[in-house]
């Protein structure tokens, strides 16, 4: 598995937040800017299996765009691919910048570019993806990413992780051959996600899986607080399993009380065994008691 050639690695991508470039506007608000480049790229999605992907900034998922509630956001899409694309953000914005074909800014043709500008609202966990027909194809090829808006009053300090549940239809029969969290199947099996016992872990979980009706997240030996869409500061549920349709997302807060390897996976066993499974390695931090 050549993650180097892919240009991104799931073990670093999981803690990679892109806060863009900031400047101050005349009214004192923060302006946050990003540039996303859509381009075709061969991605090794499993050892020896390449997939002719479409990417934002050469990676799947695209960069995790992170802003704070109320800021002004300006995202430039440059299209270096052979097909027309857009970026459609989940969140509150004008129809003009919705990134839907035929409306407002509409399609960004090959070689072209456009600028999406709107305010960061509401706070919570969102996503962005291409919204060009055939829609399933543009999403399944890899044009999606996480769009995170922090509340003005920051959430408690935590070890923060991004997990995008996705899959790949490598033979183009509109069914996935591979399932994963953060693109590469089984990557966190051989290289577990290291967390610290007693420390709060916050997981930003987004489901973008195409072609399958639902996806899910389950963790072994632990429970978590579940904040659907992250739009409320109080949890909706204390559980060890959540189910999400495409575009659904939420924030998990979990503190591992014990050391050890704890599996996490989709609770559709088929997805799990086709790649969507991994381990948390709960290690001993400064506050850890060896007794467990």
């Amino acid at each position, binding site marked *: 598995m050549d993650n180097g050639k892919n240009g991104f690695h799931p073990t670093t991508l999981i803690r990679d937040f892109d806060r863009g470039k900031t400047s101050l506007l005349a009214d004192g608000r923060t302006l946050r800017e990003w540039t996303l480049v859509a381009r075709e790229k061969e991605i090794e999605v499993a050892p020896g299996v390449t997939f*002719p992907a479409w990417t934002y900034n050469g990676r799947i998922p695209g960069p995790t765009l992170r802003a704070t509630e109320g800021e002004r956001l300006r995202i430039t899409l440059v299209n270096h691919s052979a*097909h027309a694309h857009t970026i459609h953000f989940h969140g509150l914005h004008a129809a003009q910048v919705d990134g839907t074909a035929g409306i407002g800014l509409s399609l960004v043709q090959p070689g072209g570019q456009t600028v999406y500008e709107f305010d960061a609202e509401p706070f919570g966990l969102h996503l962005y993806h291409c919204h060009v*027909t*055939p*829609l*399933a*194809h543009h999403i399944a090829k890899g044009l999606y990413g996480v769009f995170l808006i922090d509340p003005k009053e920051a959430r408690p300090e935590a070890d923060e992780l991004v997990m995008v549940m996705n899959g790949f239809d490598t*033979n*183009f*029969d*509109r069914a996935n051959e591979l399932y994963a969290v953060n693109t590469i199947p089984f990557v966190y099996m051989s290289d577990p996600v290291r967390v610290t016992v007693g420390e709060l872990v916050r997981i930003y979980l987004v489901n973008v899986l195409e072609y399958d009706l639902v996806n899910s997240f389950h963790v072994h030996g632990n429970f978590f607080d579940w904040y659907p869409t992250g739009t409320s500061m109080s949890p909706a549920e204390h559980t060890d399993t959540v189910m999400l349709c495409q575009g659904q997302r939420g924030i998990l807060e979990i503190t591992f009380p014990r050391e050890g390897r704890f599996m996490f996976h989709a609770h559709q066993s088929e997805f799990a065994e086709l790649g969507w499974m991994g381990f948390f390695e709960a290690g001993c931090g400064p506050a850890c008691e060896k007794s467990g």
Partner: protein
Amino acid sequence: MESRLNTWVLGLLPLCVIAVAVVGFAVLDGPGLTARNGPPAEELVVERTVLGAGSIELVVRNAGPDPVTLAQVAVNDAFADFRMSEPEIGRLGSANVRITYPWVDGEAYEVALLTSTGGIVAHEIPVAVLTPDPSGFIGLMALLGTYVGVIPVAIGMLWLPWLRRVPPGWIRALMALTIGLLAWLAIDAALEGMEVANAGAGALGGAGLVGIGAIAAYLVLSGVQNWMSARPGQTGGYRLSLLVSVGIGLHNLGEGLAIGSAYAVGALALGATLVAGFAIHNTTEGLAIVAPVSEERTTPFRLIFLGLVAGGPAILGAWLGAATTQPALAALLLGLGVGAIAQVILQLTPSVRDGGGRFLHPVSITGILTGMLLMYATGLLT
């Protein structure tokens, strides 16, 4: 005079009665018959797929008993814009459906044609590749036909001087070998023909067309053979060689057809291996052509003619196959090859008989089996 006229009238009378009955039946709208039970039976067959930049064009034939109206088109479970000259396709009629779709090279697509009754006709495009413009590869197909048809046959014919020196017993064995080669070609063409026919509209004849083609070729060649043997100045060996050439030529027409159509849909990677495989395979055909003339004098002109008759149709077939793939036509052409070869095998049998007049003696049996094995083995190269 008068009696002849009466004969005519009596002969035509039933036809007139049929005509009157049919017209009357139609005018009265089939008295006593009820309408069909259940919905109309819809059967559409996609005969040709042309992938252009940003478009998928299908040639659709209505193979069912009722007219079919195409209402919508979906590609990979998503509705797509499409244009067609006339939404209703009559019985056995065909229509061009041009779908606007940004297909991606190398990916798979399923086109679903939704009819006005809500029925779906699904058409698979296993690997999307830009369909080459037929006018752009006339030269390429001619070259390909020459490589796989004309040149190998000509090379195979170079065995003639050697054939002239070997004892008559060997010739018998070689004729048996030829029968084996031809038998394999006939089986191959028959299977290919049925496969092609089944891909097309069953209402146009389907696999039966292979049978019609085979019988037609057999009968016509038998007639030609009888006519030639009645003409003076024709030696038996040359006549036989010519028949073998015609049979092989019809087979090569089918082979060219297969190559051309495979190339047009991108299913064929033109490469040295493929061409070399076909060439080795077809070289044995040249041997089959010259075997009957090994014991008599012949002119170079006649040999060249024999070679062209056998190899040339590969070029024609490649053109036809690349330009238009009408499954019914292809099945008929492949059937012609089968019949022609069967007739040739029958013509070759006397030359295999041994001194005692037996056809199936150890040498001939070995020869026939070796011939089939040789064709099978060289066929693996293609």
